[in-house]
C-alpha cells in the first residue's frame, strides 16, 4: 500500500489549519497583543480568581465522583449484561447529545427552588441550584459518557481474572474494586486523572452561563 497522495495531505492540512489553527492563533495573538502586563492584570482580577478557584473546587469533587460512578456504571454494563444494562448502554451517550441548556433546565426542574425537591432541600438549609453542588452534579452528568466510553473497552480487555483471584483469596467487593479494578485501569491514558480533570472543568463552563443568568 502506498502512502497517501500529497494532495490529500495538503487538503487535510489546509482544512485543519483554517478550521482550528486559525482560531487558535487568533486566541494567542489577542492574549499577548497588549503585552504581559495586561495579561497579568487580567489574571489578577478578583472575579477571575474566584472563577478559577471555583473551577478547581468543582474538579476536586467531580473527578473522584466521576471515577466512582463512571467506572461503577461501566462495570455493571460489562460484567453483568442484562436487559437493563443493554438499555443503560444506549442511555449512557445521551448526556453527550443533550444541550447543556437542557441539562440545566432538567436539573432546575428537579432540584431548583420551584422544582420537585427544591422546597425540601431549602427547609434543610440546602441550596442545590445556582451553587456549588449544582455545578458539581451538572459536571458529573456531562462527563459520564466520556468516562464510560473509554472505560468499557478497557474493562472488556482486562477481564475478570485478577478480580476472581482476589475474591478467592477472601477480599471483599469494595476492596477488590479499589485495589484491583481501579488499579488495572490506572495509568491507561484515557482514564488518567489529568484527562478526567480536563473533562470536568471544561464541561462545567456552559452551565455557569445558565446557572448565573437564569431567574
Amino acid at each position, binding site marked *: 500500500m502506498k502512502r497517501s497522495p500529497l494532495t490529500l*495531505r495538503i487538503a487535510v492540512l489546509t482544512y485543519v489549519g483554517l478550521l482550528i489553527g486559525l482560531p487558535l492563533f487568533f486566541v494567542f495573538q489577542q492574549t499577548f497583543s497588549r503585552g504581559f502586563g495586561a495579561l497579568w492584570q487580567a489574571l489578577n482580577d478578583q472575579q477571575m480568581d474566584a472563577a478559577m478557584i471555583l473551577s478547581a473546587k468543582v474538579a476536586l469533587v467531580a473527578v473522584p465522583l466521576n471515577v466512582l460512578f463512571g467506572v461503577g456504571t461501566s462495570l*455493571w454494563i460489562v460484567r453483568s449484561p442484562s436487559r437493563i444494562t443493554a438499555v443503560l448502554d*444506549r442511555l449512557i451517550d445521551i448526556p453527550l447529545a443533550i444541550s447543556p441548556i*437542557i441539562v440545566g433546565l*432538567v436539573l432546575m*426542574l428537579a432540584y431548583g427552588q420551584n422544582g420537585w425537591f427544591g422546597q425540601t432541600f431549602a427547609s434543610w438549609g440546602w441550596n442545590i441550584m445556582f451553587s456549588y453542588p449544582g455545578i458539581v452534579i451538572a459536571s458529573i452528568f456531562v462527563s459520564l459518557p466520556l468516562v464510560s466510553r473509554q472505560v468499557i473497552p478497557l474493562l472488556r480487555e482486562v477481564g*475478570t481474572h485478577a478480580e476472581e483471584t482476589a475474591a478467592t483469596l477472601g477480599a471483599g467487593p469494595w476492596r477488590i474494586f479499589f485495589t484491583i479494578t481501579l488499579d488495572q485501569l490506572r495509568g491507561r491514558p484515557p482514564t488518567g486523572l489529568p484527562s478526567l480533570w480536563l473533562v470536568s472543568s471544561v464541561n462545567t463552563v456552559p452551565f455557569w452561563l445558565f446557572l448565573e443568568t437564569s*431567574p
Partner: protein
Amino acid sequence: MSPVKGVARGAAVTFLSLVVLIPFAALITNAFNGGVSGFWSAVTAKESLHAIGLTFFCAALGSALNSAAGLATAWVLVRDRFWGQGLLNALIDLPFALPTVVAGVTLYALYGPLSPIHLSLTGTWIGITLAIMFVTLPFTVRAVQPVLETMTFTAQAAAATLGASSLRIFRTITLPAIAPSLLAGTGLAFARAIGEYGSVVFISNNLPYKTELASSYIFSLTSSNQNTAASAVSLALLVVAMVLLSFFSALSYHFSRGNR
C-alpha cells in the same frame, strides 16, 4: 460472575436515579403540565419549529462535512509521515479541550463584525455550521483513527496486485471496514451538534425566525419563566436526538456484522 458486581450496581443505580432518572422524570412531567395539547402547541409553535429545523439542518451539514474531512484527516495521520504531524494530531483535540464558550467568543472575534480578516459570518447559517464543524471535528477523527491503525492492509495490497484501482480498493475494502466507526463518530458529532450552545450562541446572533437555534430558544423560554414550554421543546429535541442516535448505532452494528 464478577465479584465486584454489587459495587457496580450500587454505584450505577445511585448515580442514575439522582442525576438522570429523577431530573428527567421532572422534565417529562413539566412538559405535559398543559396536557398533550399544551405540549403539542409548544413544540409546533412557529418559532420553535424554525429553531428546531435550523438546528437539524446545520448539525446535519456540519457533521456530514466533518465525516468526510475527519476520515481524510485520520487517514493522513495514520498512513502518512511528514514534518508537523505531531502538531496536526494535537490540533485535532483542541476543540475538546477548549471550553465551548471560549470557542464561541473566539469564532465571534474572528468571523464577527470586527473580523480582522474582513469576513463577517455573524447571523448566517454558514457561521453556525462553521462553529459546529469546529466543535465536532475530533469525533470522527478519533473514532476512525484507531481502526485505521490496526488495519493490516494485506487485502488492499492483494486487490492492487490484481489490478484494482485505488478508488475501487477504497470503496470495496477499506470503507466497509471503517464504516462502523465512521458512523459511530458521525452519529456522536451530529448529536453533539444538535445540543451545541456555547460555541454557536455568539456567532448565530439569536434572531428569532432567522438564526435562533433550539438551545437558544429553550434558554429564552426559561428566561421568560415559560418552563412548561421550555420542557416541551426540550423533550421533543431529546426524543429526536435519541431516535437518531439509535439509528446510527443500529446502522453501525449492521455494518460491523457484515464484516465478520
